[in-house]
């Protein structure tokens, strides 16, 4: 598949207090950005269970973004620090399973940073376009063949 015509599927978990509001700002300000991100609103980046990320990859996502408030700004004091620690450890584990670290991204986007959200979406889409599709199948059905 030529990478130009390939449209990456991205899933983004955005915290409701900062990043989702930031994405909303990008929308109301009519900023143009790549439409590849499927946004899922969560209460806090610290709410993102690593199982959500794995599920996204196993069901066809080519890249996953977690986005939360800047360090020190978490509505729940320290949820974004938990997200940061999980992100670093999960990135290491995903690499062992053959998923490149570029496919799993953590960004801090505040409620005022609509343009940063725009930039993150554009950059992430381009980066994944270069990497190509993940084509996950988890070894499914091999045992059902003759």
């Amino acid at each position, binding site marked *: 598949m030529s990478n130009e015509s390939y449209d990456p599927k991205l899933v983004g978990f955005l915290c409701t207090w900062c990043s989702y509001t930031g994405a909303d700002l990008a929308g109301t300000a009519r900023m143009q950005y790549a439409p590849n991100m499927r946004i899922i609103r969560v209460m806090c980046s610290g709410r993102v*269970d*690593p*199982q959500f*990320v*794995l*599920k996204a*990859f*196993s069901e066809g996502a080519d890249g996953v973004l977690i986005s939360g408030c800047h*360090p020190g700004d978490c509505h729940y004091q*320290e949820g974004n*620090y*938990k997200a*940061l*620690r*999980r992100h*670093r*450890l*999960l990135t*290491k*584990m995903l690499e*062992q*399973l*053959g*998923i490149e670290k570029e496919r799993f991204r953590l960004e801090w986007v505040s409620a005022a940073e609509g343009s940063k959200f725009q930039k993150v979406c554009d950059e992430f889409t381009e980066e994944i376009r270069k990497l190509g599709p*993940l*084509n*996950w*199948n*988890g*070894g*499914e059905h*091999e*045992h059902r063949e003759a």
Partner: protein
Amino acid sequence: MSTEKPKVAFYWCSSCGGCEESIVDLAEDILKVVEAVEIVFWPVALDFKKKDVEAMEDGSIAVGFINGAVRLSEQREMVELLRKKCQLIVAHGSCSHLGGIPGLGNFWNKETIFNRAYHTTPSTENPDGVVPLEKYDLDGKELTLPSFYDTVYSLDQVIDVDYYLPGCAPPRDLIMNAVLAILEGKLPPKGSVLSPNKSLCDDCERNDTKPEKMVITEIKRPWEVIMDDETCFLAQGIICMGPATRTGCGERCIIGNMPCRGCFGPTDQVFDQGAKFLSALASILDTDDEKEIEKLVDTIVDPAGTFYRFSLPTSILRRKRMEAIK
């Protein structure tokens, strides 16, 4: 007919033999079992052949206990045959329940495993480069071997499974409870794991030694330190899978002063044992500084192999991505 004893079959797939041992380890209790049932198939102990099973009527065996993961076409054939002949199938032990230790083969594929086993291990002497072939012609006769899959499967990824007996190997009391429940017809809902649905920490006698706020400042591996035999392992900075693992094992490892490795798999509320443990462990790392977090994460050697030691094939991702295997 009503006086006829229920028929039982045992079979093994990709496993070490420890689960067979767990049946023998029932010791005198096995006599009670033998008294109550008729064993019609048990390759490790009794001389029955595949054709004997084929000759039995479908559904004529009350229960089949199958241990081991599925990674060969022969194993698939046998478990499909047993599924037809048995009314109930019990996945016996971690390998058939979760994929188990053989499931770690899912970090590789057939080609890389064969290359390692038949060419590159230090103890391999194979000057002619002979590898097992599925078909071989010898003096006009065709010899065959089962095919070897790229991926290791848990039993329920291949056939329908009624119950799961967890553990590496399942402890004696859980096996006896399962056998008695089957004999008395007092079975829980289909698909149940026959062990309490709570985490190991709930039952762990070291639970009281847990500090008010659990934090880890340094990760230690069991061989690097002399482990305190009374304090919670995580509080000592030693990775213990207890928080993400189902209880019922009798804390055999903890009593032996070794941390939990996770052989009972997750509780019913959890899809992915490794991810859930990763989440718990990352939350208690005692730093908010990006650089320090990265340094601490660097000291966690082989997170995938440690967190999925027994459950890689039944995890959400199931295996390493094939395209990434070199």
